[in-house]
């Protein structure tokens, strides 16, 4: 391999081996180590959530309820949703990749509040313990949406514990968001103006705004739910004088923006990967940056599109419908800018790039099918069917997880100083892409046919498509397992990674792999825009 700079001092301790022992990890305030703590725990939750997905797809391979009973099935999809949304998707990119990369990208030694950063992880763990308690003690069957009055007066699962788990976990997201916002404002290296920031930082800044402003609402909502269920104080159940639809408004006021908490960081990752593997400045820097902000702002104004059939006013429905179309435009702008970035670039189809391209494909389908659901008359037919399931899995799995996988593969050499197998990683990326499409594309047809979501037993005419979907899920699962195996393998046996294996231009690549605890020997001074590729600077890949 060729690098233009002489290899940095190899003997210097890096953040991984500067201190030894479990205690040094559990009491660390190094953003990189905290990112690794998150990586381990968040991925563990991903596999628990994934296990439930496997069980769901196994049950749905036949129309009859022959694997488990209805109560158990209902708990499966509830636990799948709660774990994947609150304990995987929301923390995945910000808490792992954001934590690791964001301070380095802005030339900082750490986040603004390193101890609060560690506190965030402990809060996440505490919320996770509640959730595991719910899981082990018998589960909860409300769906991850906790609709009232079912959740407050009728469910016989561990609703209070599950609600408290999410309530507690919310503070972790709030603190991480706050930490990022302050860090971006206060810790940028000399010369790093706002419009010189990498777009990953813009995406995380927008995400952090949603986390700080939105998460308190879900916390309050779940708290009210716990009060009603535990103490019968009437907020939502008409039997106590409450309004069941009020819950839906409050829930989606957070949970729709939460979708953007999941997808915006992923878009940030894709922008970084596209620019690096095209060796070209991202097309339309300011448009990509401001589209992140626009998504964050407009994302707060569309929650009512989850309530079109809930008895919400027709006129409210119209307002929410038109705003939902408007929030789609910034996403379209991003997709077109990524494609324009490829134009006349110097494209290298390394593994992270495969994931980025996969992201564009799947997110496009996810976004376009969102247009169906934003349309009032179409939504009435499609809402609460498998069409919705397919749509949001295209956005969250096809979008957010493809971005997460791309980011992990992109920064893996930086995080651990090792390279993974190029061959196996490409095999896994393609397997995941194929498996994903086979799993979820048939569900669009199921949805238009009218198969409702959360059905344990279904009419026989839906079986063929369900079998296809289950088959796809097994391929998808194999893809994730391959990725897990070679990544873990690379930690011990992987080839040593150079500081900048991809020839990227952002600051995190200008230091050693893995970085030293302080990130940089000398605080960098920035004199030019982000992503300035000059022919001399471009280094070659492994």
């Amino acid at each position: 391999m060729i690098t233009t700079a002489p290899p940095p001092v190899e003997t210097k301790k890096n953040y991984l081996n500067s201190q030894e022992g479990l205690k040094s990890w559990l009491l660390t305030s190094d953003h990189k180590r905290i990112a690794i703590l998150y990586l381990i725990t968040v991925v563990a939750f991903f596999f628990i959530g994934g296990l439930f997905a496997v069980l769901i797809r196994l049950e749905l391979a036949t129309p009859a309820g022959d694997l488990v009973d209805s109560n158990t099935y209902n708990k499966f999809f509830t636990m799948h949703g709660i774990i994947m949304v609150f304990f995987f998707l929301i923390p995945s990119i910000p808490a792992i990749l954001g934590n690791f990369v964001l301070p380095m990208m802005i030339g900082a030694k750490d986040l603004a509040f390193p101890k609060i950063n560690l506190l965030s992880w402990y809060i996440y763990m505490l919320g996770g313990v509640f959730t595991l308690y719910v899981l082990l003690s018998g589960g909860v069957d409300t769906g991850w949406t906790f609709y009232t009055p079912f959740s407050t007066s009728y469910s016989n699962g561990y609703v209070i514990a599950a609600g408290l788990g999410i309530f507690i976990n919310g503070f972790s997201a709030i603190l991480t968001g706050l930490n990022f916002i302050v860090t971006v404002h206060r810790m940028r290296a000399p010369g790093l103006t706002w419009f010189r920031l990498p777009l990953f930082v813009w995406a995380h800044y927008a995400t952090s705004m949603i986390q700080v402003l939105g998460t308190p609402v879900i916390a309050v909502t779940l708290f009210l739910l716990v009060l009603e269920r535990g103490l019968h104080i009437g907020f939502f159940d008409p039997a106590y004088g409450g309004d069941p639809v009020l819950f839906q408004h409050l829930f989606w006021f957070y949970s729709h923006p939460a979708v953007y908490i999941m997808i915006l960081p992923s878009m940030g990752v894709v922008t970084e990967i596209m620019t690096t593997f095209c060796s070209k400045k991202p097309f339309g820097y300011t448009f990509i940056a401001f589209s992140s902000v626009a998504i964050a702002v407009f994302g707060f104004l569309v929650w009512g599109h989850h309530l079109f059939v809930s008895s919400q006013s027709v006129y409210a429905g119209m307002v929410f419908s038109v705003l939902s179309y408007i929030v789609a435009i910034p996403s379209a702008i991003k997709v077109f800018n990524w494609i324009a970035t490829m134009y006349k670039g110097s494209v290298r189809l390394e593994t992270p790039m495969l994931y980025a391209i996969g992201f564009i494909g799947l997110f496009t389908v996810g976004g376009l099918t969102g247009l169906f659901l934003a349309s009032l008359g179409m939504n009435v037919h499609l809402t609460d069917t498998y069409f919705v399931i397919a749509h949001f899995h295209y956005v969250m799995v096809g979008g957010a997880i493809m971005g997460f996988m791309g980011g992990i593969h992109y920064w893996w050499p930086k995080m651990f100083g090792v390279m993974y197998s190029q061959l196996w990683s490409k095999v896994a990326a393609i397997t995941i892409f194929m498996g994903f499409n086979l799993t979820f594309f048939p569900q669009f047809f199921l949805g238009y046919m009218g198969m409702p979501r959360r059905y344990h037993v279904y009419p026989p005419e839906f079986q063929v498509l369900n079998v296809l979907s289950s088959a796809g899920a097994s391929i998808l699962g194999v893809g994730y397992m391959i990725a897990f195996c070679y990544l873990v393998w690379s930690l011990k046996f992987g080839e040593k990674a150079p500081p900048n294996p991809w020839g990227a231009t952002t600051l995190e690549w200008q230091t050693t792999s893995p970085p030293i605890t302080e990130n940089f020997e000398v605080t960098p001074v920035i004199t030019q825009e982000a992503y300035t590729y000059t022919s001399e600077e471009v280094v070659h890949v492994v």
Partner: protein
Amino acid sequence: MGEKSFQLFPDAASSIAGTVDGLYAYMVLVSAFFSLLIAVLVVYFAIKYRRKDDHVPKPVDEHSIGGMLLEIVWSVIPLGLSLVMFAWGASIFFTESRPPADSLEVFVTGKQWMWKIQHAEGAREINELHIPINRDIRLTMTSEDVIHDFYVPAFRTKADVLPGRYTTEWFKPTELGQFHIFCAEYCGTKHSGMIGTVTVMTEQDYDKWLATGSGEGSMAEQGQALFNQLGCGNCHASLINKETGRCPNLNGLFGTTVTLKDGSQVRFDEAYIRESVLYPQSKIVAGYDDIMPTFKGLLTEDGLLKVVEYVKSLGTKNGTETSVPSAVVETSTTGPTMPQQPKTGTGNK
């Protein structure tokens, strides 16, 4: 439904199904176009601009390809296409939200995990709905427990069924046959068992089917029996009790707008009747006192719907329309089961 083992497209059996499918076709075309465009561009660029060997690229000046113009083009075109989706969808939604006048009335009560259905004429059924073809059917729906959702995919429509309030849904079946009813809002253990069948029949078959009904009289008749049993007529003037009582005369009130104590106005409709029976103190008609006790707990949701039907049958606007046979009128002998409020209850508001 039923016989077919595999389908890729649902039956279209209502007057709006064709419009919804038309909008769907438009959206599928737009989506397919953009998906293909993006896929082709990404693959083409990935191949055409693929880095060959160790060739170090020259930085490209991005402004050379008219950045601003492109940004505008690829924002405005999708926005325009989207707004068509919005307008088309909104117009369908308006149609769906406004049941035509003189629709056939059917009442639906959702309950974990069954659909209880009552026809205005008196027939009752569970998890089945028999309706005549080419007639507008209006469902008035409520739930006894959690939120349900009455969904008929072949009719392309659904609406949530909520506890504590009435929601409506309407459709006009255009095909004979049997179609699925699904509960589309997750409602607990046997959510996926809360399914049923709509049977669309010819007008003649429907009349025959109605004739084999419950034998309990029409809903309004059953509602009148409840009205009498609960002593409502002792205070409310009605067809039976012509004296102006201590409470509003219900004759001819349905569909009108009444003025409340605080000067505001409210439409005298199903929701208002329901609210006034369960929470009488919340909206008191001007000129009357707060003397009516709540009937919460004394009436099931089904029973409440019957009372509502009875009050509706007392006539709309001019108070002439009535379907109550006089024979039933004479049976008002059952005493009130609620203790009467003392007459001195002169409005403590």
